[in-house]
């Protein structure tokens, strides 16, 4: 059940982010200045953390989404859904760790 909660929460989070994200991207039509100003704020540490959270949400939602799809289509997956939950978290960790290193590096180290 917890995976269902995770999936819901991340889904909603991504949705609202996407609303904002499209709006800010739309600024490229207004003027490069405006766009860069907004994007500039993405590069502050606080926003950096938010963004990291977002990526985490997307990754989790994505892999869990794949698990749900698998479970719906194959009996094997259905019977091993618990292991698949683990797989989701493992995959998530595998991708998240290097990303965090790099991303936070960019955000804080300004490399």
């Amino acid at each position, binding site marked *: 059940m917890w995976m269902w909660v995770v999936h819901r929460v991340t889904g*909603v989070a991504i949705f609202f982010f*996407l609303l904002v994200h*499209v709006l800010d991207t739309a600024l*490229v039509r207004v003027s490069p200045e405006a766009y*860069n100003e907004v994007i500039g704020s*993405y590069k502050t540490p606080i926003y950096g953390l938010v963004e990291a959270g977002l990526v985490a949400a997307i*990754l989790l939602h994505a892999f869990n*989404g794949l698990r*749900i799809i698998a479970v719906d289509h194959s009996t094997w997956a259905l019977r091993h859904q618990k292991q698949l939950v683990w797989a989701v978290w493992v995959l998530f960790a595998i991708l998240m760790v290097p990303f965090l290193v790099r991303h936070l590096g960019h*955000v804080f180290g300004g490399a």
Partner: protein
Amino acid sequence: MRLSGPLLVVLILTHLFINLMTGDGVNQIDFAFVAGKWAAPLWKIWDLTMLVLAMLHGGNGMRLLINDYAQRPWMKKLLHGALGVAVIGIIVLGSLVIFTFDPCPTGTDPELLNIELCKELGRL
């Protein structure tokens, strides 16, 4: 849901990877970066499908959520309405942006632009 899901995986992960992992990560993102990307039709289409799919998928997901949690019928109607407006609005807005994008708006400080690209296009 089932169809848009896997496609989105590919689309969004690549998107994120390119934007945040390659090169300079978040720091590289600016007007010039976007302009550079959208110069290639591949990325235009890429982002467009991503947008449409994500909004349809997310919109549908939100619809389910509203169904689950909105108790009173009028509330449900209201939220569904708002959701519809948001989804359609965003898709329209997003597509407009992508298609009418002008990488080298006149009168902008060239510092901000993707100079090579604009030169190539003969706009500078």
